[in-house]
């Protein structure tokens, strides 16, 4: 009986911790596919996490939180996009700049609003509601795992489908892929490369912003300093490992989230907590490496096959 509830709890938490990584890596798909490396995901998440809390606390309801959270994500993404695309600054440096600004700005704004530098616990902020899905919630085990999650969690998983349709079934998605695949070819047929990439970065910002807001308005009910803790980078790794396809990203996000969840559970055991906290980051390095090795093997195999075909 104990084992059963333990497993259910773990699966439930797995979905919970996967949400922010999934949302951010879905956002990363848009950037990656249109040919932009957005290293600023971490910072964008952090900023929207704080401003979501501040917006809902001062606006007095959730709507203002969402407006502030998404708005701040759009502004900082816009700055990233302007400097990278228009002023031709290196993407890695732009991303680093965004992350640096974010970690300073959030603490600065937090202190301004609450007088503290650690967390927003003194503010009365709102969270996204949890949703009980009718019918499913009544199924024994499955209902305990799948129902009763935060609204954002369901939106995140829904977004896998939405992004898939957007990327592969809409003209704008096609344009983004074309611009990413070969910017010169796309621009030769009249596509404005900068405009489309700008749009991709902004849309990515919205998704990532929701990922950030989930952390402070769902996963926890307040903002704490540096609460994103590298999830943006992990999401970037998940995007690379999922080959920037929605389903691939879903799988790799779940893989990385598994270790995140595992570290939550292992904290109860007698292992030094530092090793447990290391786990998601080690898993990401390991996962990326294994993936890269596989990819190279596949390429070698393919090129061999082609060679053989030519010989035959």
């Amino acid at each position, binding site marked *: 009986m104990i084992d059963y509830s333990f497993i259910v709890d773990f699966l439930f938490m797995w979905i919970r911790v996967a949400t922010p990584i999934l949302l951010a890596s879905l956002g990363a798909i848009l950037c990656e596919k249109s040919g932009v*490396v957005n*290293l600023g995901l971490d910072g964008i998440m952090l900023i929207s996490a704080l401003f979501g809390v501040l917006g809902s606390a001062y606006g007095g309801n959730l709507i203002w939180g969402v407006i502030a959270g998404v708005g701040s994500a759009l502004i900082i993404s816009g700055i990233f996009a302007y*400097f990278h695309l228009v002023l*031709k600054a290196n993407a890695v440096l732009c991303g680093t700049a*965004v992350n640096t600004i974010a970690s300073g700005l959030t*603490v600065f704004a937090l202190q301004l609003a609450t007088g503290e530098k650690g967390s927003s616990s003194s503010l009365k902020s709102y969270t996204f509601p949890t949703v009980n899905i009718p019918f499913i919630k009544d199924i024994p085990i499955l209902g305990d795992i799948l129902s009763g999650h935060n609204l954002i969690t369901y939106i995140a998983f829904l977004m896998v489908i939405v992004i898939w349709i957007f990327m592969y079934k809409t003209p704008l998605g096609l344009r983004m892929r074309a611009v990413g695949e070969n910017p010169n070819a796309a621009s030769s047929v009249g596509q404005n490369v900068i405009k489309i990439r700008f749009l991709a970065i902004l849309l990515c910002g919205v998704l990532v912003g929701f990922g950030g807001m989930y952390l402070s308005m769902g996963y926890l009910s307040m903002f704490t300093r540096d609460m994103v803790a590298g999830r943006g980078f992990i999401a970037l790794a998940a995007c*690379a490992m999922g080959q920037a396809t929605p389903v691939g990203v879903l799988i790799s996000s779940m893989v990385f989230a598994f270790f995140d969840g595992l570290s939550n559970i292992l904290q109860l055991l007698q292992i030094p907590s*530092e090793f447990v906290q290391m786990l998601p980051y080690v898993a990401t390095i390991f996962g990326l*490496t294994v993936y890269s090795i596989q990819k190279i093997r596949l390429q070698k195999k393919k090129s061999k096959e082609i060679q053989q075909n030519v010989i035959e």
Partner: protein
Amino acid sequence: MDSNKRIRLIVDITKLIITILVSCGLVTLIVLVTSSDPVNAFSSFFLGPFTSVRRIGNIVEAASPLMFTALAVIMIFSAGQFSMISEGAFFIGTLGAMMIATSVPLPAGIHPIVAILVAGAMGAAVALIPAVLKMKWQVSEVVTSLMLNYVVQFFAIYMVSYHFREISSSSLASIEFKDTSILPVIIRGTRIHLGIVLGVILCIITYFLLYRTTFGMKLRTVGNNAKFAHYSGIKVTGIMVISQVIAGALAGMGGGAEILGMYNRFKWTTSPGYGWSGIVVALLARDNPLMVPLAALFMGYLNVGANIMARNSDVSSEVVQIIQGVMILMIAAEALLKKWKQKMIVKAAKSEAGMKGDVIND
């Protein structure tokens, strides 16, 4: 050719001035909007660092670790790589130096040298990981180095709290370093320590390595155009790995020098972020190691100013991070002033052509 060089210099300097002005303007704006006593905040920030010898010393002390990490960043970026490992290499360096300083008995002169060398070796070892993963399997060094920074942070904290912890202390702190390991203070009335001399020497060595040796030439060629370097017979991946290892060693030594010069125990609970500031310093120095001390002093000045402002007024010191981010954006923006530069080059070329034309006509 000469006039092109001159134009590039003029544009670079103008851009630097604009960057610094925009940063100062931003501070002004933030202070005006948020502070209830802006005059006090301003004077604390801009003039505060110069009000006493001790504070001027603080500027130099704050600049010291940034020189090492900036040199590391320059080494990595010059080879066209984007490993962010200088943060982790610095932190593992502090750990390495701490281990030697607390547990290995050595005579006074040799102790800090050994500790800093071990720190450098550990930094190099950490930097080797993303470099090798990239070389062997093309794993993005950006992501692996960022992840590794977290791993290093937790590992260092683990080592301190489980193996080197001062039991009697309520907060996390290591046992005290042996007296023989401490880097001596070189200017009385301040805490400016011998580490800063090491930093300056390393700046000069790095400059010679990058700009006066064949290795440096190869490294910069790889950074400018890896394909060209490959076709001209340079072992590209080898150079990339070596550059990152040297960078790791530089940052690691910085960690060692910092902890032995400024502290007598290991007290950090999170990675201190010198690696990130090092990026700003490297960019400010325009990838020139000889300019690094100056850029580091400027950054140190901003840090000290922000701390004084935070103590004397209601504006918190995180302002500096915002400014640093804006600086990275401004300096990285290659298209900034590009039109102006183009115009100047065209003008110079025209006047040169005109002069030649005259000669021919004569």
